[in-house]
């Protein structure tokens, strides 16, 4: 069998950065989840950190229910931030290279103390307004891309599958409208 070059070209157009960086990154995200689950039995999601951390500064009953988990959620989030920095200090800085990693051309790279850091070109108003809606939506909807998308789907949870289909569909529609309105980046 010889692969059809037309089909290969079509596939390459859909994946201009290949798929290996996505697949390898996803396996690591899953592995991080598994490390915590094996030791603690907790299927950790990232969005509850917002409410649990607010329990330090607000006495509202909605936040106080997370007092018991707020310390480890803070540790989990600190780990995620440090994991991002570890990526920046190694792969992003070019210290570690891999054929599985496709660098990418978005945003701006800058250097601090020999570490190549990266900053987005997406406008602050989009990040802020989108952030507010993400903050409201994940809390009403009981999860985010890691809680529903990774742990929930991994649990074959019907609730999470419906949640993922809902936010993926709406996000695609929103992004298409925003792009059609000429907002970029």
């Amino acid at each position: 069998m010889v692969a059809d070059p037309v089909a290969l070209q079509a596939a390459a157009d859909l994946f201009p950065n290949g798929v290996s960086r996505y697949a390898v990154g996803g396996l690591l995200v899953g592995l991080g989840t598994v490390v915590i689950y094996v030791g603690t039995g907790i299927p950790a999601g990232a969005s509850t950190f917002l409410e649990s951390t607010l329990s330090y500064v607000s006495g509202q009953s909605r936040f106080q229910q997370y007092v018991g988990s707020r310390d480890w959620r803070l540790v989990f989030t600190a780990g995620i931030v440090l994991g991002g920095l570890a990526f920046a200090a190694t792969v992003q800085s070019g210290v570690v290279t891999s054929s599985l990693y496709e660098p990418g051309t978005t945003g701006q790279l800058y250097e601090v103390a020999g570490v190549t850091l990266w900053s987005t070109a997406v406008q602050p108003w989009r990040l802020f307004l989108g952030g507010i809606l993400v903050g409201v939506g994940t809390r009403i909807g009981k999860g985010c891309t890691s809680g529903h998308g990774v742990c929930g789907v991994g649990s074959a949870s019907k609730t999470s599958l419906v949640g993922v289909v809902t936010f993926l569909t709406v996000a695609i529609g929103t992004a298409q409208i925003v792009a059609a309105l000429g907002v970029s980046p």
Partner: protein
Amino acid sequence: MSADRHPLFKPLVFAGGIVFGFGLGFSHMARPEVVLNFLQFEDLGLPFVMFGAAIVSGVAFALLPRIRDAAPLTGDPYERRLKPFDRNVLVGGAVFGVGWGLSGICPGAAYASLGTGNVTILWALAGMFLGAYVQGYWRSRAADTAPAPSGAD
């Protein structure tokens, strides 16, 4: 969970978070542009991240309850992440979807993004805390006032 946890509880959560965040950086999910490129059908790599991660976690969620009764650091039973379905899943999912589609940012990826040096992401984090606070404030008030007869405003 009790207050006196195993001494390795937090170190393990920390280590898991580092691997999780490194993966988000490596997959470029910490870059809002790359998420937006997926949502605009210009680079369809994102599902490899979400479903790749879900497959890995799914294998552990399926196997561990058969191997052990309880997690070693907490004594908690291995359970799957099952949340009850109601209308909120659709409403919240839709609101989250608008935010995700507008900004390209979700909570875990935003924390990792900060680590990669993306200081601008603080706008998104500020927004998320504000949104979570408004939602929680509103829900707390609804819960606190629900049993009592409502007075005139």
